[in-house]
């Protein structure tokens, strides 16, 4: 109840201020749209970032949760916002570069200006601790011997856990069944219960649910999982990460973008945000505007290819 009220007040303030001549940016609170409901992973991440980003930007940040349709409703709202720097999208990889590949949306990847990447977590292929499969070679051999017998889970169609496994199946020429779930925790229940055998997600899932990691979808070995080989080492060029970043609507003025970028950089460097990220097991990986823009374009193109190979292109 409180949030809508705050948003209303913020909205009213915006309307009032907008009629005056634009003063130095930012002169009133900035709304950061989170495209998922309060209490989820993206939301708690955004709220952790909120206060530090507000300090470095010199204004109050208001988090607005707009949930629905895999984050696309919120992303659409962010893309439609007035490009004045007072409405930003705090978007993870899904609504930013995967969903626009899957279906027609009122926005596309070009509707945004990427401002900065805030964090990125690598993805690991895992199985249950008591599984006889211990290496990625075991994995390939076992699954190849029994086509369509083994089942991998995901946190929903078109999510990174799904794409990572789909891409693995394509590049190793394996046939597996895909069982989508409502989220990571739900899929973990199925893994512990033996309904699925494989899952791909961030390292924190490995430790939280006591799983056996088989390979990392990275180019370098992951800190803390030094004994786990990368897919690249094993000859498969498969790289996946779950990242989140700040996006502004297209047409946001250059000087505002510059301010946002530098405030974002400083916020990711504060001790407070570092402590917060360590607590929730997020790796801070800052990327500036230019790098992040190129990265987003590359991710968009890469996921388009994987989705096509998995038979999930736009209809």
């Amino acid at each position, binding site marked *: *109840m*409180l*949030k*809508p009220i705050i*948003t209303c007040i913020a909205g009213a303030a915006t309307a009032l201020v907008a009629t005056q001549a634009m003063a130095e940016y930012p002169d009133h609170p900035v709304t950061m749209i989170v495209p998922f*409901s*309060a*209490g*989820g*992973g993206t*939301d*708690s991440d955004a*709220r*952790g970032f909120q206060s530090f980003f507000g300090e470095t930007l010199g204004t109050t940040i208001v988090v*607005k*949760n*707009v*949930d*629905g*349709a*895999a984050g*696309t*409703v*919120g992303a*659409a709202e962010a893309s439609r916002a007035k490009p004045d720097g007072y409405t930003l999208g705090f978007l993870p990889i899904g609504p930013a570069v995967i969903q626009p590949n*899957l*279906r027609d*949306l*009122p926005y596309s990847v070009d509707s945004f200006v990427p401002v900065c990447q805030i964090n990125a977590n690598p993805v690991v292929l895992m199985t249950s601790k008591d599984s006889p499969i211990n290496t990625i070679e075991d994995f390939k051999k076992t699954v190849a011997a029994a086509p*369509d017998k083994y*089942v991998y889970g995901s946190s*929903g*169609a*078109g999510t990174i856990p799904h794409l990572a496994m789909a891409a693995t199946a394509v590049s190793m020429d394996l046939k597996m*069944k*895909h*069982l*989508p*779930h*409502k*989220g990571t*925790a*739900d899929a*973990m*229940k*199925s893994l*512990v*219960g*033996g*309904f699925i055998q494989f899952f791909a997600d961030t390292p924190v899932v490995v*430790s*939280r*649910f*006591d799983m056996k990691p088989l390979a990392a979808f990275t180019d370098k070995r992951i800190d803390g999982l030094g004994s786990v080989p990368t897919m690249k080492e094993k000859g498969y060029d498969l790289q996946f990460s779950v990242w989140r970043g700040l996006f502004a609507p297209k047409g946001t003025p250059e000087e505002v973008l510059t301010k946002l970028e530098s405030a974002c950089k400083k916020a990711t460097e504060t001790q407070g945000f570092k402590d*917060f990220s360590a*607590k*929730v*097991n997020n790796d801070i990986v800052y990327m500036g505007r230019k790098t992040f823009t190129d990265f987003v374009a590359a991710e968009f193109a890469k996921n388009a290819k994987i989705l096509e190979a998995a038979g*999930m292109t736009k*209809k």
Partner: protein
Amino acid sequence: MENFLPGLAQVMDLGNVVAMFVGTLIGIIVGALPGLGSVVGLTICLPFTFSMDQMPALSVLMGVYCGSVYGGSISAILINTPGTPQSAATCFDGFPMAEQGHADKALGWATVASVAGGLFSCVVLILAAPQLAAIAVKFGPIETFALICMALTCIASVSADGLVKGLLGGIIGLFCATVGSDPVTGDIRFDFGIFALSSGLDLIAVVVGIFALAEVFSRIAECGRTGAPKVHDCGMRLPAWHEWRSRLGVLVKSCTIGAVVGIMPGTGAATASFISYAEAKRSSPRRAGMGKGEPDGIIASEAANNAVTGGALVPTLALGIPGDAITAVMMSTMIIHGITPGVRLMAENAVTVYACFIALIIINLMLLPQGIAVARLFARILKAPEPLLLSMVVVLCLLGTWGVRGNPFDLLVTLSFGVIGYFMRVFGFPAAPVVIGLVLGPQLEMSLRQGLILTDNDFMAFFDYPLAVGLFVVTLLILFLPLYRNLWARRTPASAPLG
């Protein structure tokens, strides 16, 4: 024991007691206000918990959780509008009882049943969390499907006056649940090219529309005809022991159903109260009166939905797998406070876990005095002039609906379902089956399709799963026992049993 005392010390800290008290109170009030459900209650409190210590933060959230599940019954009984979807089944008997002038007693039954359900589930949680969690994970998509089928039989139980209308309502509810993204392929269905529909029809928006707004509309329509509405003089009257004695069986059964459904991840309090109501309607010796103001109906619904609270925390704490949407929010709060729910929680944070157990018991005990106070407060609010009261309800409904997802489209959904709900009343369609269909629809579809993926699209293979077969058999019993009883009663009219 070595964890119990430090845990108790953490809980009994003054700041923490205040946190539990305030959390529970906020929960009850939020739960009782139509439109503001448990999840909204938690999200209101969430930002404040970030600056708190670990234990008070968890206490506030547990208080809000338990309080809101109970609070929904207050408005269900007093204004025929479940404050939360979990209390939808409480309307069936709670409101008729209030109409007969026994609102105080209905609230008393609801409160005692809620406290009993909550405490029962605490005991279950404390005694057997890890063992139960281990069993719960064996409960796969096919068993979940069977369980949801069982919950769907509640549609038949609540539409005794017009089975066809009830079933139609259920089907409409199930259909509404399919709007939006396909849970398996992610494709968008039934959006008619409207982007806003791609996020589906929000449950809260529909519940608020079909119950609360429809109630408001029909009261407006009746205003001229019936004059001033009945204002029930109420506070709360707790039921006496002799009234309880014969109903203990219903209570224990409902608590058990609630706790078991809570433990199975992915269902939730609404499902539990529907199953429990259907079961009471089947087996209670007083089933003939159910739907007309029989305390058994209130007990079945409220004991079961509160028993879910502790049950849903079993997989959350023991495995890191949240039992429902609400425990999922709580879990992410725990992680922010540096506690990682999951297999290692008990080893790494044993004191915190015990402190949570103790806090949960105290919170459930707090429901009783706070419930009495809030019920008095609400009774007073209900005495406000009707136009004022109705406009207040409308404002709260719309604010609450918008607060859930921040999506303005949901307001349109609420208004449309308010109009639909009004006409359903006019034509004698019960509203509850629509909600039951909508609540259970997504779970039914997800579990059915997951099951079909596992069995290579062979539905008959579902009958290879013994637990699922057991649940199917019980479902058939619930469905056909009333028919059989009717036949029996017709054949032997002299010794016709009541019912």
